């Protein structure tokens, strides 16, 4: 073999790495890749059993019949303000959003929803934060798409962005409608 061809090996390596990073960045801006996201163990599995009090509260049995976006949030959570507009937009578009207030106080949650809008068809209160641990939630906000059979299809860590909605959520909503 021509030894000069060996010189192309590091070059090809750099090109491959560059293409990989480019794809990563592209998917990140499209909202289909989250570099800090830890893969959820729930994807493809039924939602863990739970029943939360609230206004009106809900449980695992209520997550059926239609695709539902479950959003963990808290009034003390700054990025939750960031995603408020996105959630309101989804609600206007007819997406069923169930909220779970994580380690929050009822009056503070109410004040937060008055100020930033209430996108939630149902609101559960997870004051001890134990349901969140069963779901594998690492922090708020975090959103899960549950299909009509109660199976978890998608998880987004951090505030929902318009890119995540168009890039990931909307195609999945069409798929599981």
């Amino acid at each position, binding site marked *: 073999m021509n030894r000069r061809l060996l010189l192309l090996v590091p070059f090809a390596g750099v090109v491959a790495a560059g293409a990989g990073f480019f794809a990563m960045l592209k998917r990140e801006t499209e909202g289909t890749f989250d570099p800090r996201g*830890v893969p959820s163990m729930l994807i493809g599995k039924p939602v863990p059993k739970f029943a939360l009090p609230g206004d009106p509260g809900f449980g695992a049995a209520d997550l059926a019949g239609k695709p539902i976006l479950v959003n963990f949030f808290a009034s003390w959570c700054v990025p939750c303000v960031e995603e408020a507009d996105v959630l309101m937009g989804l609600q206007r578009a007819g997406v069923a959003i169930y909220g779970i207030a994580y380690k929050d106080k009822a009056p503070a949650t109410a004040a937060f929803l008055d100020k930033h809008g209430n996108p939630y068809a149902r609101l559960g209160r997870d004051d001890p*934060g*134990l349901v969140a*641990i069963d779901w*594998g939630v*690492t*922090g708020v906000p975090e959103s899960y798409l549950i299909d009509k059979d109660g199976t978890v299809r998608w998880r987004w860590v951090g505030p929902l962005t318009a890119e995540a909605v168009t890039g990931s959520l909307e195609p999945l909503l069409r798929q599981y409608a």
Partner: protein
Amino acid sequence: MRCGLFAAVLAGGLMLGGGAWAIGDPNEALADKAQESRAVAIGQQLRCLVCQNESIEDSGADLARDLRRLVRQQVAAGQSDEQVVQWLVARYGNFVRLSPPFEWSTVLLWGSPLVAVVVGGGIALFARQRRPVAPAPLDAAEQARLRSLLDT
């Protein structure tokens, strides 16, 4: 003598306190010392998912405190170390282990020292072979010529 007694008391106090000091709030500790030290050992292998590079025993995050409490509940309920870890892995995945298990997705991680040795060794061998060979000793005719040149 008094000094020695003081030191012994201090040392005893430090040893007794050791278990409770691993976490911020002594109220979190289990009353049973053996169970508490098991809970600490388990917690030290588990990642705090908020700060990501601390164990739940070292972290001051809220979630870490909740996880510490759950680990202690399960230890007190008689679960084995592996059962407690599996309970958390079922929720958070292997990411929650600070020491990931050896499996297909971690082959590159665990194999990277071996890859480094093989690649490094390969480069070393390659460089060795390329080293210029010492010239063969002069034969009789060349030595005669060398001598004649030196003599002039």
